[in-house]
Each structure stands twice: as C-alpha cells, then as structure tokens.
C-alpha cells in the first residue's frame, strides 16, 4: 500500500520510455561514446600495433603498395571487421598516430557481413 502516492503521481508525469524509432532525437549520446570506428588511411604508418592488441581478432593486416600513402612505408595496412569488433577501443588508445577513431554511431546494421568491413 505504501507506493500509492508514487503511482498516482506518475499518472500525470511524462512517461519514462523513449519510443526509439519515433523519438530518435531524444536519444543523446555523450561525446566519449565508443561506437563504430572510422579509419583515416593517410595518418596510418602501418605499425600493426592495433592488430596485436585487438582481443577479438577483428583487425587483419593486408599488403599495401608504398606509393599510395607517403606516411605508410611498412607495406601493410589494417582492415577492420566490424562484425567481430566488440567496441573495446583498445586500438584507438594504442594507435600512435590517432588513425583510428570510435565515432558515436551505434546503429550498425548490414544485410551482408562484407559491408561491415571498414577499409
């Protein structure tokens, strides 16, 4: 019987639920949110530190010819399999040249796994 006050007060309060598809703008994310990552090829130096530190084998090093990017003389660069990524952000921390940044995009949907590859 003791919650009766709270019950009737909440009859007139605005509902707590955020109806996701309609009220998408009410969902506000903090700026440090770890969502889908984006990769800046020009900054990358091909040191493959991100490959070593990724706990879920989401990063794979592929050969890359040296001419395309002056900074990357190591002849290889990472590609990211977002399907395996757990958004832990270890690669963003370890990257010496800030080439990887986790955006605040949380709606990661794809019909085909191959679209989830960040080149």
């Amino acid at each position, binding site marked *: *019987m003791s*919650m*009766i006050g709270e*019950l*009737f007060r*909440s*009859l007139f*309060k605005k*509902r*707590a*639920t955020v*109806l996701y598809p309609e009220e998408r703008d009410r969902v506000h994310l903090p700026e440090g949110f770890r969502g889908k990552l984006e990769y800046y090829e020009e900054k990358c130096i091909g040191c493959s530190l991100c490959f070593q530190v990724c706990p879920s084998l989401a990063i794979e090093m592929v050969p890359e010819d040296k001419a395309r990017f002056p900074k990357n003389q190591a002849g290889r660069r990472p590609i990211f399999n977002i399907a395996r990524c757990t958004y832990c952000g270890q690669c963003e921390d370890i990257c010496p040249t800030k080439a990887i940044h986790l955006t605040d995009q949380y709606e990661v949907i794809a019909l085909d796994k191959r679209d989830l590859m960040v080149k």
Partner: protein
Amino acid sequence: MSFEQYVVETLEAIVFPGFIFIFFLALFYEWFDRKLYARLQNRVGPYYTGFHGLLQPLADFIKLLSKEDIVPDGVDQLLFTMTPLFTLALSVFAAFLLPISSTQGLVSFDGDAIVSVIILTFLCITVFYAGISTYNRYAIIGAERSFLQLIGYEIPLMLSVVGVVLGAGSLSLSGIVASQAGWWHIASPQILGFIVFVFAAQAELERIPFDLPEAEQEIIAGWNIDYTGRRLAMFRLARNIELVFLCGLAATLFLGGPLGPTVEGYTQIFYVVYFVVKSLFVLAILTVVRALFARLRIDQVVGFSWRYLLPLAIFQFIVVRLML
C-alpha cells in the same frame, strides 16, 4: 412468439448486448487494464497497433488463432479439448445475465444473482480441470493452487453478494438494480461488501496479488502451460469476458448498474454508457490493486481470506441484517 420478435431477440443475443458487443467490450477492457497498469508504472503500454494500441488485444487474439495447435501426447483428450470451450461458454452465459442495455439482463429470472456467483465457482472448477488434464508438473501445481485459493475467497464472495441481496430484498439482478433507484448500495454500509467483492474478484481473475495458479516466476504459466493456438485464445478470451462480467456484476450490485439521470428519448444509450463507465471505474480499482501489491504465497492467500475477508463479510452481513 411472432417472427420479427424472434429475429429481434436473436439479434439482441448475437449482436447488441449479446456476444459481439461483449467480445469487443472484453477486448476494450483488456486494453484499458494494460494501458492504465502501464501508465501507473510510468510506462507507455501497447502503442503501435491502432490508436494508442487499441487493437492490441484483438491482434493478440487473432495471432493466437493462427498459431499452431499442439496437443501433447499423454494428455486426457476429452478434457483437453472440452475445457476451453466450457470456460468460454460459461463466461459468455454469465455475461448475458448482466443488465446492460436495460434494467434487466438478456437472461433474467428470479434468483439470477445467486446463479451468477455459482458460475464463478464453475469457472474455477474448469480451471482446475484444465490444469489436471495435462500431466505437466507445473499445470498440476497450478490447478491445485487454484482450488486452494477458491476455498479462501469463495465464502466471503458469497456473503458479500448475499448481503446485497438482503439489502435489496430481491434475489434477481433486476430487482437489485430497481432497489438502487434512489440510493446506491455503495453509499450504505454495503461498502464493506464492495471491498470484499473487489478482493474476491481479484482472486477469481487470478491477478496479482492472488495470481498463484499462473505465477510466472514459480510455475511458469501454471494451468495454461500446455495450451497453444486456438485453445489458449479461447482461454484468454474467456478470462477477458470474465473480467467484464465481474466488473459489471460489481457495478450492478453496488453502483446501481445502468441507473442514472437520463435524457428522455435515449434511455437505452444512457443505460449502456452508465454501465460501461461504472464497470470501468471498478476495473480501475482492480488495476490499481494489481499495481500496488506483491504476490502472496498460497498459505498467505488462504490465511488472508479467512482472517480478513471472511470477518469483514460476516460483519457486513450482520450490519445489513440489523438495518432491515
């Protein structure tokens, strides 16, 4: 009986205050109950189907009808198929007793107040058979609990109805409604009977705090665990119609049924409006009770009924007796 009176009567039975109207009223009541329950918990409740989820109960009903109807082996075939039909038939017949569009129900005879309460007991028995017919452990425990609960709340329920019958001096619902023309029963000391009736109705409908026969956390779905498809649809519809019946019965016994100030030409419409508004008020009380309490254990339910409901009902019975 002349032919067109016959047609009018069947139409009345089938369409207006009869099955079709009761069917949609039951679905509306379920929507109202779920929406108010959600609003009390600061939630939204059904939202997407129809205007603010109005068609959600109908959608559930149709979905269940289209679902596969599994009959587990080792089940008592006769009981397994008959109990849903029996429960639905009983609750629809009970709904016919209620005076909706006029001061007397579709089926009105002397003594139908007592018959309506007996139907409630029959409904509990069909729940018991529904549980027993499937040899599922959870269903057996659910059925056993529904009977234990029946022992608890049945006598107070009877006493509160008998109290009203004594106060009104007539055994038929129309008589009770007529006696409340000037003074509703709820205003008199019958209000104790109203409180007992509300708790007993909550137990009859197996809603929290008395929802032991289908306690989701302990015995998953209790007695209706093995019913799927059409059978489950019938059980849920029967449960909703029973909800309409109980709220209507409370409105008739204590709140003066369809009576109220009416404009000259449209008395019938006003009767229906009054009936629905009053039973919605009783439904609101039932929903608030559902949101307020935690579920009691089976021994506590029987204890609560014998220690609180029964003395209250007896006291109300004595007071009414003295007042006469």
